[in-house]
């Protein structure tokens, strides 16, 4: 066997055998990996929409803008709010947050930080409940704001983490950006049609400013 044939056979055999093994293993592992990801998503939706028992996935594309939101439904099948992911740059990398929004589009129901690479001990405290819980019932109009070293005064304010303003700012900024996108792509009227029976009259009068 000359060298060329040997090289050719070597690479082909090893490549094909590896490919087959990986294909088989992928078929075995992939469902489990999907289940894990779904579980993580599901848990975070139920954290930001505490009343939800199940959720519906809503997808919509406007132009190039594709957006997925999750509508939480309670035990009686009534919508309780929507959840969506807010991604954006933090201090050291992406900060991904699951955001829960009331159906009246006025207040946040809660947030959960899913991915972050912020500084341990300082910025990564954005994923602690003490910080996340501040966002419960925070008003989104005109937008969410943070203040430093003081207790929040207005209903749309939270207190930034001391020594981690950039990380706190990233969370607030990502939430505002994501909320703005959701308001644009899934306008309130449309969501109310989906959730007939959630007293549309009272919600109608409080149209959020855009």
């Amino acid at each position, binding site marked *: 066997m000359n060298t060329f044939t040997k090289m050719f056979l*070597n*690479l082909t055999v090893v*490549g094909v055998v*590896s490919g087959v093994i*990986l294909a088989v293993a*992928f078929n075995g592992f992939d469902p*489990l*990996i999907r289940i*894990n990801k779904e579980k993580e998503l599901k848990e975070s939706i139920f954290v930001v929409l505490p009343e939800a028992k199940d959720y519906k996935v809503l997808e919509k594309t406007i132009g190039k803008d594709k957006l997925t939101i999750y509508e939480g439904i309670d035990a009686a099948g009534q919508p309780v709010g929507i959840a969506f992911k807010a991604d954006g740059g933090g201090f050291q990398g992406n900060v991904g947050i699951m955001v829960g929004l009331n159906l009246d589009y006025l207040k946040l129901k809660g947030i959960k930080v899913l991915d972050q690479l912020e500084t341990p*001990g300082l910025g990564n405290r954005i994923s602690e409940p003490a910080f996340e819980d501040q966002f419960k019932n925070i008003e989104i109009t005109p937008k969410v704001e943070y203040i430093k070293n003081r207790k929040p005064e207005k209903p749309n304010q939270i207190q930034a983490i001391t020594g981690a303003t950039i990380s706190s700012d990233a969370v607030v900024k990502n939430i505002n950006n994501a909320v703005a996108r959701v308001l644009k792509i899934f306008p309130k009227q449309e969501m109310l049609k989906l959730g007939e029976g959630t007293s549309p009259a009272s919600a109608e009068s409080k149209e959020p400013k855009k």
Partner: protein
Amino acid sequence: MADNTPTLWHEFQKGLWQDIPPFRLVLGTCPTLAVTNSVINGVAMGLATLFVLLCSNLIVSALRKYVAPQVRIALYVVIIALFVTLADMFLAAMFPPISKALGPYVPLIVVNCIILGRAEGFAQKNPVAPSFMDALGIGIGFTLSLAVMGAIREILGFGSIVNIKLLGDWFEPWIVMILPAGAFLVFGGLVALVNYISHRKTAAGTNP
């Protein structure tokens, strides 16, 4: 078999001290620095590397008579990548939190020089049994190194070990220890310590 056993034992134990990868060979330093901010992360990384090292050493050693030398590195990389991908999928499927904590460092085992180094430097010249022992020794040595690094950094940086609170509230965590700078400090300290001990050993051996 009787005269074979000490050799196999030698292949195994050399990875534990004499050739302990990060501190004596200074190989595989990237994961050593990157994922050792806690014991669990360090041990998981070490075990994933051990698995890849064992499998690739076995295959490389078994195939050593059939490999064309011109393409051997390409072959080794494909073989290593196969086992790394398997380890990565396994962690993502079975231990999602660990997989998340280790992030891109599991796929990066492909370019870990310990593994290619053992394939090229040992497995391609030796039969299957010594190659297996070699991989086992080096892999366990690597895992222990990462565990020690992780333990030191976790105790100083979080005041805990394996997530169990070790030091009381009086302890102010040294945040620097869980940051990259802490990795370099601990790594430098351990290399110095290991060298100091082996120098004293050698000195004691030559001047009885």
